[in-house]
């Protein structure tokens, strides 16, 4: 409301004869406000500047909004500034060049976003029909951000002359929004509202919802001049407070007020004849207060019966702020048609999020599905292999500044680094512990904390940047609700690629055959001429290498720190165990279930993401009770023990 009235008031002020000023006059008069502007106070100044009609005003405002306005310290004159060498090139507001100035001699003006919004709104009238489409687009942005009744006419006038079809559509859309809000003609508003039926875009809902704002009231009888949204039952929570604020009933007595009143009437160790010791209970206090009430020393407090009676004798209702019933009815109908669609789309978006989370878990767990699932080796250092991959990505990016090339280099390099690390670990440690799985757990845990600390010592504890190339920036938005960032899509594709790779490797290659043979019966495999040592080493290296690539992907979408791996290790084990050990489809099912379940709980309890993770793990623990071998359990001899 304030925003609507302000320009009006200013316009009135400026309309007074003799008030018109020239641009230089305003600038020198309002220098302090322009130098340190606040949205609260700068409105009149901006309006005064636009009201001068000076052709330089628009250029000046634009420079100011773009933070290209400077104040020369020596004489306090304003200039449009542009970087020139080590200093600024100055241009006076009237367009004449004023030479160069050192950076230290000019104060750059940095209006905040609120002020910039006002400046942009003021510029609308100059740019709505500007020859440059970019400027016209900016004017439309400004209208969308701060719609005002005064914009309705200029906007309508500018639609016909618009040549750019995209801008024309936007202008028409904005016209709809402005019409439904500000048009004096009720029928035009309803028509505009009906045009938005079924439109799920955020701005459409943003335009419709304010029409349905309500305020809550209490009254002795229903008023006839209000556009009533709903009549409320008298037992609604806070109803009595509503009466108290409306001045229709006395306030209830709070324990604190009671205590203060008693303390004020404390005489000779007793209050109204009740000894002090008895006041250590609530009933004693009530008794003393009643005694005081009867003696008239304190005002009577509302009793429960009085409260009930007061509630009964009043009505409570929500009233629309919009007085026009036709408009609110149309808006409600339009929103009802939108809401079902929005609900469906939100569910779809949640599904996409779940899919994305599942693909991240799957990617983190796929290496583990090989080392743990196939070889039954508990590798607690798996998370640290993920971390090593992420750091490899970071180091490569330090050496190769081009983000695209660096990612292309980093992926195979991360594989190579973690493959080598995995092979080294298998040869040096795990090989000796194949018969002692619990001890593998401990030894690899030792390696895990050592690697984590070494990473800290080398790279520091600060998170390191790993930036995705520009073509992975942004998101694939189907509409305002369903959207998914490209980086998540990339991770999803990567996860699918690895699934395919894994299947191909295990089912279609000699190596896969040998791996399966060694897993099922090492002795028999060895007697068939397969070298189990070599196969174990390669399998382990492969699992570790994939973890490294997962590290690059995870680093791209989240962060690179030495603790990156430990964030994923428990989830990864869960994924493999829940899904079913020894089967890649199991890991996939596990990841899908964990991701989906977690998003589901997040949806149920949006205020607390931590709870989602907690209940997800509890659910897994319970799930394993009923399917100890996971979703996809191996059967027969392959299951082993």
């Amino acid at each position, binding site marked *: 409301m304030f925003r609507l009235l302000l320009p009006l008031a200013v316009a009135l002020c400026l309309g007074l004869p003799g008030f018109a000023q020239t641009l230089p006059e305003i600038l020198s008069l309002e220098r302090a406000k322009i130098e340190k502007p606040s949205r609260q106070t700068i409105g009149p100044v901006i309006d005064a500047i636009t009201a001068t009609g000076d052709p330089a005003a628009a250029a000046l405002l634009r420079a100011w909004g773009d933070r290209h306005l400077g104040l020369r310290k020596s004489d306090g004159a304003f200039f449009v500034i542009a970087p020139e060498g080590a200093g600024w090139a100055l241009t006076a507001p009237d367009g004449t060049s004023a030479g160069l100035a050192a950076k230290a001699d000019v104060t750059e003006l940095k209006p905040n976003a*609120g002020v910039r919004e006002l400046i942009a709104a003021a510029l609308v009238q100059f740019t709505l029909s500007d020859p440059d489409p970019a400027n016209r687009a900016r004017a439309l942005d400004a209208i969308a951000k701060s719609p005002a009744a005064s914009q309705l006419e200029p906007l309508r006038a500018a639609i016909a002359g618009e040549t750019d079809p995209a801008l024309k559509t936007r202008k028409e859309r904005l016209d709809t929004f402005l019409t439904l809000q500000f048009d004096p003609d009720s029928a035009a508003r309803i028509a505009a509202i009906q045009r938005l039926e079924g439109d799920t875009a955020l701005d459409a809902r943003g335009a419709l919802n304010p029409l349905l704002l309500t305020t809550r009231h209490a009254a002795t009888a229903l008023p006839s001049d209000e556009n009533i949204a709903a009549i409320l039952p008298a037992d609604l929570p806070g109803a009595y407070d509503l009466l108290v604020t409306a001045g229709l009933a006395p306030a209830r007595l709070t324990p604190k007020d009671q205590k203060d009143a008693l303390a004020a009437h404390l005489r000779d160790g007793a209050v109204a004849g009740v000894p002090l010791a008895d006041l250590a209970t609530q009933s004693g206090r009530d008794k003393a207060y009643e005694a005081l009430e009867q003696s008239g020393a304190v005002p009577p407090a509302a009793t429960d019966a009085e409260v009930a009676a007061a509630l009964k004798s009043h009505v409570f209702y929500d009233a629309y702020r919009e007085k026009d019933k036709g408009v609110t009815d149309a808006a409600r109908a339009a929103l009802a048609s939108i809401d079902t669609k929005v609900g469906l789309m*939100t569910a779809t978006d949640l599904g996409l999020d779940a899919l994305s989370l599942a693909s991240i878990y799957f990617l983190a767990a796929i290496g583990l599905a090989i080392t743990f699932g196939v070889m039954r080796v508990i590798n607690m250092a798996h998370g640290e292999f993920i971390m090593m991959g992420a750091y490899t990505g970071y180091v490569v990016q330090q050496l190769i500044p081009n983000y695209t090339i660096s990612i292309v280099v980093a992926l195979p390099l991360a594989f190579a680094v973690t493959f080598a690390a995995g092979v080294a670990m298998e040869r040096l440690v795990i090989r000796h512990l194949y018969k002692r799985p619990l001890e593998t757990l401990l030894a690899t845990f030792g390696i895990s904390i050592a690697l984590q600390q070494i990473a800290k010592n080398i790279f520091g504890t600060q998170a390191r940047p790993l930036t995705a190339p520009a073509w992975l920036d942004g998101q694939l938005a189907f509409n305002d609700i369903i959207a998914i960032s490209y980086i998540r899509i990339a991770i999803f594709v990567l996860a699918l690629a690895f699934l395919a790779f894994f299947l191909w490797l295990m089912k279609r290659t000699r190596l896969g055959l040998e791996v399966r043979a060694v897993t099922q019966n090492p002795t028999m495999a060895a007697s068939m001429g397969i070298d189990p040592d070599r196969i174990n080493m390669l399998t382990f290296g492969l699992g570790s290498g994939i973890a490294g690539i997962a590290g690059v992907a995870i680093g791209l979408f989240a962060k690179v720190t030495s603790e990156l791996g430990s964030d994923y290790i428990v989830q990864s084990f869960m994924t493999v165990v829940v899904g079913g050990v020894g089967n890649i489809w199991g890991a996939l099912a596990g990841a899908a279930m964990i991701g989906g379940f977690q998003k589901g709980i997040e949806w149920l309890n949006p205020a607390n993401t931590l709870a989602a*993770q907690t209940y997800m793990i509890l659910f897994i623990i319970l799930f394993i009770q009923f399917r100890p071998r996971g979703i996809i359990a191996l059967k027969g001899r392959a299951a082993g023990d």
Partner: protein
Amino acid sequence: MQFTRRKLLATVAAALAAPMVAPRFAFAQEAPIKVGILHSLSGTMAISETTLKDTMLMLIEAQNAKGGVLGRKLEAVVVDPASDWPLFAEKARELLTVSKVDVMFGCWTSVSRKSVLPVIEELNGLLFYPVQYEGEESSKNVFYTGAAPNQQAIPAVDYYLNELGVQKFALLGTDYVYPRTTNNILESYLISKGIPKEDIFVNYTPFGHSDWSKIVADVVALGADGKKVGVVSTINGDANIGFYKELAAAGVTADKLPVVAFSVGEEELSGLDTTNLVGHLAAWNYFMSADTPENAAFIKEWKAFIKDDKRVTNDPMEAHYIGFNMWVNAVTAAGTTAVDPVIDAMVGQKFPNLTGGVAEMLPNHHLTKPVLIGEIRADGQFDIISQTEPVPGDAWTDFLPASAVLESDWKDLKCGMYNTETKTCVQLTSNY
């Protein structure tokens, strides 16, 4: 079995002897003044706290170059509480009883401070705490040189309300005490400003959270009722990286949906590509981009000390800078390093801020500080777009009913938790 005992005793002896046989500098005739530095050098918090340890070493070195304090050299005693909260209490006790330090500078998280509090109150130590925190606490033995909520959170929200015209708030935080309390205070402040409760969306995420898509989508969807939405982020540490990356990916620009952060400074931004975050906000009492000669000198000294031209400075560093210099002045004024006279001399100490103006130590052991709001630039620095007059820090917020009646005054009332209604001191020790 004797082996056990011998081994244990050997460890005991070694542990006892070690701190005593470590004389670092031996220049002054008189025994040096010992300054304990209680910052984690390992574990999750090392990321932030190591910088503060280095800052303290730099300040101590500079002070020694100026001739020390009271004619005595300063000696830093550095311990590593390893981001382990009980260890903070243990190390504080060790610093006070074994190393016998005269003053301590340290802690970052609130929980570490709460862990240390009983120990320093019991042993009458002195601690300077340099980080913005949730308030609701006042200890005789602690000087809070970071911002209280009214020096960071409230002005930032005022900026939203007054300058950006935000009508709907998303309070996003990491699930721990600072965001919880700050959001509580903000919620009741906003309600007092006429924002209805249903227009305040609150979400808590775990430490190091990385999957932000759902939350960012939720926040964007808040705009559906046509009100201007602003995000107030008390998200801590690493989690910010994923959060800002998701914001950037979702195309949430600052003019559509501004985010003001209370825990994101120059140091945190150095782990991020900020080109997509230009225009988002942070509220602090200090920005590295502050244009004053003191700040330029401080930055130069820091870069020379750390031998890295790319290192940034941040708000808690300034807090230590002010706190340390005030302590030096208070010790000089009191003529002793004994804790009680120094505490008395601290109140009313003034020292120039790095951002201009003068900080003053108040009787409630908080500072007056200007509040700065900065917009993120593409180079990871901040454009200061708003700087208030110095705001006196308030230990007990006025916006929660339980603490509105409380006051802290260690000068006249000699009480950190004084109930102004009943005119009594609730308790002398702080609550932990």
